[in-house]
């Protein structure tokens, strides 16, 4: 039996990988790719949240928002520490990588327009994070990551509950209901894009074969819908999805994927799109990509400059 087949068989029978000594090159590569996506996503969630945190309606709201950002940085720290233990140069990844090479979701390349959007960000995007990382926590074959996710799982749940509270409170105020609906209208499909291309378009997935995660993209998308849709319905927010009794799953009422107008943050439902084009859009990055990555790298670059001047 070759090494890949041996490792895959052991993993499918519950073997937990504890270090590089248990890995083949393919496992290590898939693990690093996964952790880079996770680390980038956690870290780059902070700049958009910062764009509106000073609009917090109460001091308590502001403290909670700051605590959430601190958590996200902590989660990024965990992912990058794991990467360093796997031999990656994390200073290079963090401070010298071009903005368009970062792997955070396209949804994080946008400024938020108001405090309500921060609530929907927590309720939808942190829910996507909770769905994806909760699955990894439950299924991943990489022991050090599984243990690290205890903290992450707990904190992401707190973030999404915070988002739900902001949304529910706003829906009780007739003046804010429209803002909630407007935020949901662009952020709902953005959250669905977190889970990646449809299963039928993927030939194979090293992430699944090596059990870095347990559920497929479509299964995870359904899991997200199964809590997000009932929540939105319960507070009177309209979402473009419903549960279809016959099919036994959630179905969308709009084309997905679909073209997006990044300037007006608006989905163009009359222009259905392909996943191929969506990936192109992801790679082109959104409007704030350079500014947000620049913000992460600014301090390190300035310090580097100062050191050069002193010498």
């Amino acid at each position, binding site marked *: 039996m070759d*090494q890949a087949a041996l*490792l895959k068989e052991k993993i499918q029978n519950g073997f937990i990988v504890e270090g590089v*000594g248990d890995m083949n090159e393919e496992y290590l590569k898939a693990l690093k790719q996964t952790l880079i996506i996770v680390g980038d996503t956690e870290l780059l969630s902070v700049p958009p949240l910062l764009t509106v945190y000073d609009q917090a309606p109460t001091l308590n709201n502001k403290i909670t928002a700051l605590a959430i950002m601190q958590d996200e940085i*902590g989660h990024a720290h965990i992912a990058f*520490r794991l990467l360093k233990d796997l031999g990656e140069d994390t200073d290079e990844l963090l401070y010298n990588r071009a903005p368009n090479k970062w792997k955070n979701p396209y949804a994080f390349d946008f400024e938020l327009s108001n405090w309500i959007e921060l609530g929907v960000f927590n309720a939808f995007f942190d829910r996507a994070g909770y769905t994806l990382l909760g699955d990894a926590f439950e299924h991943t074959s990489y022991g050090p990551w599984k243990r690290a996710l*205890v903290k992450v799982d707990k904190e992401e749940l707190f973030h999404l509950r915070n988002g739900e509270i902001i949304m529910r409170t706003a829906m009780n105020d007739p003046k804010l209901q429209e803002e909630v609906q407007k935020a949901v209208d662009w952020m709902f499909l953005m959250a669905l894009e977190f889970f990646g291309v449809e299963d039928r378009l993927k030939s194979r997935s090293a992430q699944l074969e090596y059990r870095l995660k347990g559920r497929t993209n479509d299964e995870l998308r359904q899991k997200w819908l199964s809590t997000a849709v009932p929540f939105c319905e319960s507070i009177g927010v309209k979402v473009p999805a419903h549960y279809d009794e016959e099919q036994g799953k959630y179905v969308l009422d709009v084309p997905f994927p679909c073209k997006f107008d990044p300037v007006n943050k608006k989905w163009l439902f009359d222009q259905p799109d392909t996943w191929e084009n969506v990936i192109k859009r992801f790679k082109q990055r959104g409007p704030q990509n350079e500014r947000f990555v620049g913000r992460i790298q600014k301090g390190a670059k300035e310090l580097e400059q100062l050191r050069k001047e002193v010498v």
Partner: protein
Amino acid sequence: MIAEKITYDIFARINRGDNLMHIGTVEAENSELAKVYATFTYDEEDWTEMVVVERNKLNWVKKPDWLFSEKGAEAL
């Protein structure tokens, strides 16, 4: 001269009577900073005890029997 960063492993106990667990790692220039980073990064519990240990001061008695070799499958 920039001080070299040291890797610290962090162990903590949630309540009296619980097991001491490995909860994470930090990198720091010295153990005083490592204590500060550990406190702020791993604040998910109100720990009864927390300790930071320099990774290279850990004296291993046993490591896992690696599936391939210490450096992985390609090193075989």
